[in-house]
């Protein structure tokens, strides 16, 4: 187990290096000049733009900039935002609590609802309930968060006046964005749970368990669900990763802070260090969530360890 963990950590470092490098290179292939964007309203002359580029070190050869940047990252210095001059680490970290809060809340809704629906559906395979639930799942997966978010605001904020439409702080401002994201996740997890459970329920050990005279609830939870859990866990890991950066539309509709919005804004402004830093952070948390999922595999299925 430890050996595997060490190997994973080394691999993680390589992946992070690749992530940083790709982000660095990709941003430099995008046409445009961050300084020109920044100074666009000042009527800055070409000379002035060149001056500012020099002050920011953007006039150096790309390779030199890359090596300098990488050196900084190794020392834990992600540089400063071109636009604000604030340290990237600080900028990213102040957005992180909002993203974490929304991720956790959506996952709670998504996982609990998804597994419940998936189970209900699998255990009544082919029934009306099963079909209805799977229609819901398709709906949930394909529903654009932009549309669903606005619909919720329209109903619960504008018509009923129950919930505030914007910002964060407290359950009342968390519930709508979490439901928007959570329902999408629930739909995905319900489908995975259903197919995994349907498969497991046909296994011989389920028949054996029933033959032993175990109560159906025990059969389902202890014998079937535990075995069906591996693909569900994998999906949960992927969804967490997606939520870290992919909640941008929901964040925008509900005027929330978040890593997704931060990153998109940084990309459009071509704030190189900020994009690289935000991507790096997301990569770290994505890998961490997947590492946790991998470790949970071992808990769920001891055979994986060997």
């Amino acid at each position: 187990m430890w050996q595997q963990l060490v190997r994973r950590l080394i691999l993680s470092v390589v992946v992070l290096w690749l992530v940083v490098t790709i982000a660095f290179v990709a941003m430099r292939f995008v046409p445009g000049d961050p300084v020109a964007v920044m100074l666009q309203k000042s009527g800055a002359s070409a000379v002035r733009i060149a001056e500012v580029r020099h002050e920011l070190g953007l006039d150096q050869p790309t390779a030199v900039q890359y090596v300098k940047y990488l050196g900084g990252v190794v020392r834990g210095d992600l540089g400063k935002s071109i636009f604000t001059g604030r340290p990237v680490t600080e900028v990213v970290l102040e957005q992180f609590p909002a993203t974490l809060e929304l991720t956790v809340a959506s996952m709670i809704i998504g996982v609990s609802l998804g597994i419940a629906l998936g189970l209900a559906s699998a255990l009544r395979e082919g029934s009306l309930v099963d079909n209805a639930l799977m229609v819901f799942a398709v709906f949930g997966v394909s529903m654009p968060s932009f549309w669903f978010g606005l619909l919720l605001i329209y109903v619960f904020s504008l018509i009923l006046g129950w919930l505030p439409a914007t910002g964060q702080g407290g359950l009342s401002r968390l519930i709508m964005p979490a439901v928007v994201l959570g329902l999408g996740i629930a739909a995905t997890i319900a489908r995975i749970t259903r197919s995994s459970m349907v498969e497991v329920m046909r296994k011989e050990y389920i028949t054996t368990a029933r033959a032993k005279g175990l109560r159906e609830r025990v059969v389902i939870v202890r014998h079937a669900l535990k075995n069906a859990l591996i693909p569900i866990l994998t999906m949960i890991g992927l969804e967490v990763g997606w939520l870290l950066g992919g909640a941008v539309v929901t964040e925008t509709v509900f005027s929330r802070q978040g890593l997704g919005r931060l990153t998109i804004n940084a990309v459009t402004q071509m704030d190189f260090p900020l994009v690289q830093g935000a991507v790096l952070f997301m990569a770290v948390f994505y890998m961490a969530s997947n590492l946790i999922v991998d470790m949970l595999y071992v808990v769920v299925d001891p055979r994986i360890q060997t």
Partner: protein
Amino acid sequence: MKARRLVGVFVAIVLLALAVIGCGAETTEVATPQTEVPQAATAEPTAVTAPTQGGELIVAMAYEPTKIDPHRTASETAMNITYQVCETLLARAADGTPVPYLADSWEVSADGLAFTFHLHQGIKFQDGTPFNGEAVKYNFDRIIDPATMSEEGITYLGPYLSTEVVDEYTVVLHYETPHAVLLNNLANAVLGMVSPTVATQWGVEEFQDHLVGTGPFLFKEWKRGEYIRMEKYPDYWGGPAFFEHQGPAYLDSIVYKFVPESTVRTGILQTGEAQVAAELATTDVPMLKEDANIQLDILQNPGTGIILMFNMSKAPTDDLKVRQALNYAIDQASISDILYQGIMAPSYGPLVSTTPCYWSGAEQMYPYDPEKAKALLAEAGWTDTDGDGIVDKDGVKMVLEFPTHGKFAVYRDPAPIVQAQLKEVGIEVNVQNLAGAGWMEAARTGTHNIAIVDWRANEPDGNLRNTFQSENATAFAWTWHKNTALDALLLKGMVTMDATERCSIYEEVQQVIMNDAMIKPINSYANIWGVRNEVKGLHFVPGGPAYFWAFDIHLEK
């Protein structure tokens, strides 16, 4: 992306329809093209009772600034915010003339090179630092310091040399060349006064999180991605004469919330979650007009308006006849109707009608006339020889490159209509929706035939020199055209102190630009504000429709 946008449009339409039904409107109002008369300030009937003290004002803004240090920023949202915290030496009256603010009086030397200001005495910054000549000198020197990396203030300050502190309350600003619009510009937020003590203490990058000025509100907190909050400054010096009251502000606090979705801004304005909302969508205007709780203020911005700039150093837009044909073939009135129900009014020259020194002669120059456009193209040698609907010359089809800003709706949305209208006369347009940086890069490097841009300043110099002075081609003068006579006129306008003479220079500039068909004007940019009825005493900054002063605001239930 395209599909998603379509879905967005669809949802907006559905929600709008639902909302209209929900409001119980018997008939759906058909929006007729109309131009609101811009109001410099909302005049309130004189209140019989004393204004209510206290309360929190919530303002829903569309964009979040990256910087709010007035000397460093170019963000309109930031300027709206700093108007409450950092005051300016002068302000503008509704007619554009300068009025006293932190300076009581001023004199301009006959050569236009020295501006003397007599400062209001006894004012202190919010940290206790005295506001005096040294403070003024510190501020202007800070703006031109390269380390400040001023994005906009440095342009408005112009060819500034130094500040001479004559005595505690008298300063003289010295100029290299006359700066005709300085008195006007000194009313802009980006030339606002910050506390020298606090600005020095925190340094250029961190000061904006500790912003201190002389104003009626204290900057308290910037929760990035969500809001900026400020509180009443109880020891405020009292305020200039043009406000309705003297003494501290009425409100306890103001929260500027960043709400990027316009439908959500409209929604929370209607529910009262916000009392003021900025940059409302033109599509929401008919619905908001039905709402008895809300007053709409549609303010046409002075400036160039949205203009198409033709690249005159690249074929085929280097040909005057082609550019004239483009002017006849594009119908700005229908663009304004289709996209904005006429709310963002069509424009006809390099300045929109709310800008000082506007020349109305441009209005009749290029009426919509596709037949005339075709004739001009034929004169220039462009005809459709192979019958494919696209004109050609010497075996080359006419294809115009039109890179635009895919994220900024007022630049993005006219492009497909322009494309369709030009198709009618046999011109193919290659529209590219780029990110902001790509849009700039295409025009800055001159790869475009058509570029789209607007400039919003309340005097002609800033608007026209930035967009037409040939040396600014890498900035915004995207016609890529060197006309020495035009350049000379623009410089002359800048240094001509006499207002009448200056306007006649700018009229000539506007004529040159339109005679040469350097641009195709599309529409003015309107700031659409929604203000709930309980908000009294909100004054928009004259000449700056994106800003208001909160000092007189009081909330009456």
